[in-house]
């Protein structure tokens, strides 16, 4: 069974079709990244899945439950999911460990409080008040509160905004570890390298519609696109797009009789593909 199943989902605000007929299946244990510019319908879609917003039409099943329902069943459902929202800055007067320990009491099978603190790298801030934390540390607390309930499904909304590169790498390692335990993860992010590092599949959403769903390596025909070979010839940097980079490099090797100056072979980055898909042209 899929963790998330969405069929023909639509939601309008007045004349604006924020979500305009989305189909989406996310498998159990998968990391799925939803990409798209601001205002594309990303947040609306995710918040419908999280049960924060109602939909106009379409079918939605999240862990076999319709998120628009309420009552005791909704509590049982929320017990199985974790949500890391975009910006939260509350309870500045509680310490990290007090907050996480309190939230752990909401769930039937929470993870160990200290283990969670350790996994987000806040050990030495455990007894600090939240208002004394830096932006990145607060974000890690948000993540800790998202995973304390030991969720089967975790929503992460731009989780690493404001992280330094090291914190981001540590966070990626944490997410991969969660996936290793079988957690399904739905990620929205503006960082294409993050999607590439983490996601099994990415979906690009624009103007309320899904444009394509593919693995990061295959999105937008990336795996079959031409490779770009560049090198230096005297004072000149030369480049050539080719379907056969290996042959070209072999040719150049004999031309230069050995080492090719400043050789690089690249394919389009995920970012190049993504920007092309959403219609942004830049140099």
């Amino acid at each position: 069974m899929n963790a998330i199943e969405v069929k023909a989902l639509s939601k309008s605000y007045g004349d604006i079709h924020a979500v305009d007929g989305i189909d989406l299946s996310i498998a159990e244990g998968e990391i799925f990244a939803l990409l798209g510019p601001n205002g594309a319908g990303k947040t609306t879609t995710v918040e419908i899945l999280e049960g924060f917003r109602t939909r106009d039409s379409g079918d939605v099943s999240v862990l076999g439950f319709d998120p628009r329902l309420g009552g005791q069943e909704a509590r049982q459902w929320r017990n199985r999911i974790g949500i890391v929202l975009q910006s939260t800055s509350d309870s500045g007067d509680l310490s990290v460990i007090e907050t996480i320990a309190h939230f752990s009491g909401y769930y039937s099978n929470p993870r160990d409080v200290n283990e969670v603190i350790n996994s987000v790298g806040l050990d030495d801030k455990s007894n600090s008040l939240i208002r004394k934390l830096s932006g990145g540390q607060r974000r890690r607390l948000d993540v800790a509160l998202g995973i304390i309930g030991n969720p089967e499904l975790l929503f992460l909304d731009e989780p690493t905004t404001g992280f330094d590169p090291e914190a981001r790498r540590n966070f990626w390692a944490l997410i991969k570890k969660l996936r290793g335990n079988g957690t399904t993860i739905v990620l929205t992010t503006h960082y294409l390298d993050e999607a590439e590092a983490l996601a099994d599949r990415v979906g690009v959403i624009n103007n309320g519609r899904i444009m394509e769903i593919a693995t990061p390596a295959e999105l937008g025909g990336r795996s079959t696109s031409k490779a770009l070979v560049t090198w230096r010839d005297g004072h000149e940097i030369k480049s050539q797009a080719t379907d056969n980079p290996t042959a070209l490099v072999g040719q150049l090797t004999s031309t230069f009789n050995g080492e090719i100056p400043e050789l690089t072979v690249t394919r389009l980055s995920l970012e190049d593909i993504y920007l092309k898909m959403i219609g942004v042209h830049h140099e």
Partner: protein
Amino acid sequence: MNKIPSALSLGIRRGGLEIRQFARQRESVIFTLLFPVMLLAIFGSVFKDTIAPGVTFSQYFVAGMIASGLVNTGFQGLAITIPLERDFGALKRLRGTPMPASSYFIGKAILVSVSMVIQILMLFGFGVIFFGVHMPTSGSKWLTFAWLVLLGSACSTALGIAFSIVPKSGRGASAVVSPIVIILQFFSGVFFIFTQLPSWMQQVAAIFPLKWLTQGMRSVFLPDSFATQEVAKSWENGRTFIVLMMWLAIGIYFSVRKFKWDRD
């Protein structure tokens, strides 16, 4: 698989957390707990007359201060702090957990009740020592006092949670809520003797719970002989009970049905 904790047990845990958070905000602790005492000191020093044989203005004023303490702590406090929590995203985060709304409301009610008990004890101590305020003497008066505080706290909490949907933002909440409370205090006979107010003010005040809470508190703190000086020539405690129950029902209805967890 363990069971999810019950709404009541989570509510009690939230109450503990709310109190801890509140206790760490030194300014609001001082303001909330000392403000009624300061007002008593000011009014008790200015109005030294007796308003009836054996009834000082301080005695009259203590009744009003306890009643308006209930409104300040519950209604005003919650209608201002809940929009702030909403702005911070704290409510939305709670909404995403299995914690039910009722637990959140119970937590707020516990915070209001504990804060009220402390305020009342301080008013009593200060009033008795410095302004010769007399404590209720009979068991039945203490009983009336108990249900007034209990029902008043519940009513004020529910209305505060309900009214938290009105302010558009946390920053603007105080500007919306505070004038309502101050006007109600003037109209309801907290600062002035109710029967000396213009009758249209008395009639407006009679719609809202503060007038009834204040009158009920007077029945506790003033001698029964004073009842004849009330508008209805009696304490009307039965009517007070009904009015407070009605407002409690209104507060609960809007809290449960209309509570906003998110900014938009």
